């Protein structure tokens, strides 16, 4: 009885939560008058598959998508590398000032990027990086959250693995490459996922450091499409779906790592 109630509440909640996505996909393939009609039925009477190509022709979404993927994947890989090295060093090496340094790294999590973007913009323009991939990639190649997660993962590994490898003549870097990295793989996938999504979903920074349409990422492309598309709601929803679906797919593919990577490593103190 109580369990039935729990199922009912959860199902109702879940339907409410995903309804906007269903509505988005349905509206994306409606005719224009149908999409504007305020109908309570989210699904189209007849699926207008032509909307997809109409959207891709209305704005260079192919180019935006390429830019976003290039930037997002590069950022994700760089964050994995810097977090792996730094998290490993914080977990396995002891040196003077380690606690202070790690505290300082964590403190950067407290300061949102919205506060520091003006000087960062100044630095980027001084470097001549305005309207370049470097401006979209380099500032995001390390983050405190990734370092924190990797450190937690290494702390939860038994030290015996490391000692055995050292006895066999393996140094710290080769240990990291051949043994350590694969042992914290779920964490690394989680770090990649968050870094990629952070980059892929960012809007403020790309708005600030790019103006050339050929450098546009999907979020900026979508923002200018809002202004250009006027009231073509069906195409706008098609474009939104085009932006949202890749991140959902990526999440679904990686989520079994995510569950162990984020939940298994210390967020639960």
């Amino acid at each position, binding site marked *: 009885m109580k369990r039935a109630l729990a199922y009912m509440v959860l199902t109702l909640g879940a339907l409410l939560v995903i309804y906007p996505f269903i509505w988005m996909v349905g509206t994306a393939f409606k005719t224009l008058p149908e999409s504007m009609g305020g109908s309570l039925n989210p699904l189209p009477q007849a699926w207008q598959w032509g909307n997809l190509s109409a959207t891709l022709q209305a704005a260079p979404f192919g180019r935006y998508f390429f830019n976003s993927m290039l930037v997002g994947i590069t950022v994700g890989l760089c964050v994995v*590398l810097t977090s792996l090295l730094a998290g490993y060093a914080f977990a396995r090496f002891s040196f003077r000032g380690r606690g202070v340094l790690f505290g300082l790294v964590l403190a950067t999590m407290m300061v949102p990027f919205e506060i520091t973007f003006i*000087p960062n913009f100044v630095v980027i323009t001084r470097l001549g990086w305005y309207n370049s991939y470097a401006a979209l990639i380099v500032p995001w190649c390390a983050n405190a959250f990734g370092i924190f997660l990797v450190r937690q993962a290494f702390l939860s590994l038994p030290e015996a693995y490391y000692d055995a490898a050292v006895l066999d003549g393996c140094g710290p870097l080769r240990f990291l*490459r051949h043994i350590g990295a694969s042992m914290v793989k779920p964490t690394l996938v989680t770090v990649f996922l968050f870094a990629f999504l952070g980059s892929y979903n960012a809007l403020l920074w790309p708005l600030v450091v790019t103006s050339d349409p050929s450098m546009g990422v999907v979020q900026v492309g979508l*923002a200018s499409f809002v202004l250009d598309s006027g009231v073509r709601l069906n195409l706008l929803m098609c474009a939104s779906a085009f932006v949202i679906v890749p991140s959902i797919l990526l999440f679904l593919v990686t989520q079994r790592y995510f569950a162990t990577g984020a939940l298994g490593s210390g967020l639960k103190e």
Partner: protein
Amino acid sequence: MSLWVGFSDGLDRVLAWADGHLVGRSGRPEGGRRAALCLLAPALLLLGVFGVAPIVSTVLLSLFDLRYGNGAFAGLGNYQEALQSSAFWNSVRVTAWYLVGVVPTTIGLGFVVAWGLMHVTQGRTLFRTLYFLPYITSAYAAALVWRALLNPQGGLANGLLEWIGLPTQQWLLEPRGLLHVVTGGAVAADVGPSLALCCVMAFDIWHGLGFTVVILLAGLSAIPQELEDAARIDGAGVLQVIRHVTLPLLTPTLYFLLLIGTISGFQAFNSFYALTQSGGNTLGTTENLVIYLFANFYDNGRWGYGAAIATLLLVAIIALALVQARFARRWVHYS
């Protein structure tokens, strides 16, 4: 394939060479401060240049009256201007209402969902995935969907109201207070958050709920089942168990969520920008601190003034985090 083998061998040789230098002759590798600093260098360099240094520069920039990078030293002029500006105080109010509305509601709803998920046997992973989906999607793109749903002309929200037989609303275009609208005008229009702001809050609650649920699930699964069982056997009802067993043991997780929620509440930008800004229709009642900062920087080129707002924002975040840390001693139990 042989290219990869060659690359892999080469990489190994480079790593072995580097290992030799990192470890030196000191014996046990963990001892090396030099080795640790080498490993930390890339991350620390990036975090220093793009994370720590800009905090100092923001404070410095805020002392200049910069227009697009040119301007003279202005002392505390920018701060003086901000503290006397009604637009600034309006954005402070909007941010405050937003925090008060979003943070507790998200945690409360998140708890209901997470608690429900702990008590079902089938489909827990599926439910968790569904609730998590909004969190990983672009806030901007998802907000466009909400904007269409809340469109006064032909949007679904008004369609529903018409169907039930209630008067339609202006939603995101409504600057009058929520209480004013709900009570049919009994409360003055400028009391409390506007209906438009409440729509933005509802969006961000929807968008952030999944993250809260996942963190709460981790916290709940760390609570030993025996404790709840023991309380039940002693005759406690469901609500009593939640109140006296579950919630006290969950306080560290709740504190973590409160802190994270407050910080990210201060920095909300994408939802406000997508729901209320683009399209040229801006209501003062939905201009939060970051939107105000961005408008001054981007539209007016007032870099120095923007930096002053950013500094005030940082001070507010640190102050609120310290206040929360102080109160946490009273209500957070670490077992």
